[in-house]
């Protein structure tokens, strides 16, 4: 029998903000739980919910008026007994990366710290299917996990004043992509020709919180061709 998932710790952050917290850990299980609870909230609160933001272990709900938490608790348990909230079923988003030395600004640093040849680093980076645990820092900046433990490299002690949009970095337990030109301290190992954030695009953001992502390698020639196509659209 399936184990009943306890209702998360609930706290009013302000008049119109509620924070629901699960255990403070980064893990796939916790991530699935958070996503499931986020879907549950959207369904239950419906038009009372302005929006919600999920993180590794919390869902923060911005609401229009007070919410009956006891009722939510009851529904959470009932729902688990009766129905299945469902999991994200979408295919991982395939993101091309050019790992060319020209873009992999921290290639040597990462090779030194990991004591791996760059070919192995690329392979470890591409092998995993990542989850979008969090979006923040910049509009559309995805925090992707879990990174292979052999690729854990501390962030730069002195952040770069400018990292160009599309740069793919690894930092600590995660990998991510800079959606815009910005300062940044992640170790840059490649670049995607895809545009992560474009206000004029029908879907302005490439990544969605809770989605899945996988990387594949492209040549510099292919990078330039895709980039050109992206820009002419």
């Amino acid at each position, binding site marked *: 029998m399936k184990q009943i998932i306890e209702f998360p710790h*609930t*706290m*009013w*952050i*302000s*008049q*119109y*903000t509620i*924070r629901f*917290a699960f255990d*403070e850990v*980064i893990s796939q299980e916790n991530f699935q739980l958070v996503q499931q609870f986020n879907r549950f909230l959207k369904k239950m609160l419906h038009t009372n919910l*302005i*929006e*919600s*933001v*999920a*993180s*590794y*272990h*919390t869902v*923060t709900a*911005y609401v229009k008026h007070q919410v009956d*938490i006891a009722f939510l608790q009851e529904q959470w348990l009932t729902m688990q007994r009766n129905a299945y909230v469902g999991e994200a079923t979408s295919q991982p988003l395939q993101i091309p990366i050019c790992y060319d030395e020209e873009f992999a600004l921290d290639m040597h640093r990462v090779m030194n710290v990991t004591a791996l040849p760059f070919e192995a680093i690329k392979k470890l980076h591409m092998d995993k299917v990542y989850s979008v645990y*969090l*979006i*923040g*820092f*910049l*509009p*559309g*900046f995805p*925090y992707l996990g879990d990174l292979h433990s052999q690729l854990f490299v501390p962030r730069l002690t002195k952040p770069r004043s400018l990292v160009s949009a599309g740069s793919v970095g690894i930092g600590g337990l995660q990998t991510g992509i800079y959606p*815009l030109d*910005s300062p940044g301290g992640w170790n840059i190992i490649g670049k995607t020709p895809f545009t992560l*954030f474009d*206000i004029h695009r029908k879907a*302005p*953001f490439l990544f*969605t*919180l809770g989605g899945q992502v996988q990387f594949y390698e492209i040549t510099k020639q292919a990078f330039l061709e895709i980039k050109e196509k992206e820009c002419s659209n």
Partner: protein
Amino acid sequence: MKPLLIVKKQGVYGSLQDQGREGYRAFGVPRSGPMDSVSFQAAHTIVDNATADQTSFEMFIGGFEFQALNDGIYVLTGATCLCLLNGRPIEMWKTFQLFKGDILSIKSVNNGSIVYLTPKGGFQTDLILGSKASLPMVGSTPGVGSVLYGQYVAALPLTRGLYAPYRPYFHTAITVRVFKGPHFQLFTEASRQQFLSSPYQFSGGNRMGYYLKGNVLDLKTRKDILSEATQFGTIQVPQNGQPIVLMADAQTVGGYPIIATIHEDDLHKVAQMRMFNTIRFVLMEESYAN
């Protein structure tokens, strides 16, 4: 759209603001909107703008100059400042007319820090993610040479305004209500008491955050916390122990411990703080926070 003004001189920071954008926080886009919603709302009430037309130009301190490209009715609200129309002082909180070619200057501010310039009919601009509020990361902030647009509207038959006794006064020492933050209990007992009993001084800031200075706030044990959602009014405490209040354009998630969150209805007071002003925090009743 009708061209209303051209920006001739730029002060510290100017941006267009409406009620802000909803539905994009999960994508890392802040809500934005006015820092001082009271002065903002008063402006739109004075010029009688419909909800959809409520867009103002928000300015930090003075230093702005505009030239009118067309005739229009305006009102200035917010921080008390010297405002000149073709070199002559005009009254704030009261409608005035600009004729084509007129020069409007926003000079020194002597009370508060944020001023709103609001035309009858509101400023008009293309929506960015459903809102007219400037989104600085994508370079949509007006600067010198920018044209601010409005719309063709009927003139107001009479001068309208807010009587002097009803205009807000921005105090140099304020007290605001706070809710306990998710990491309140992680702070030492002494730090929690300091936070709730001693004043903190404004030491600079912008639409993203206000930096405060005062008694250092320490965690019981140095512990990294996981990033989570923040909002306008979140008080986070980085390693140096000095609190930062996240403001309207702040990032949507943060990784510093959150000691408290300021009550929404008190945020306008915080927004108008300036150098050396002080702020005190009083805790909302326990029962509210479950």
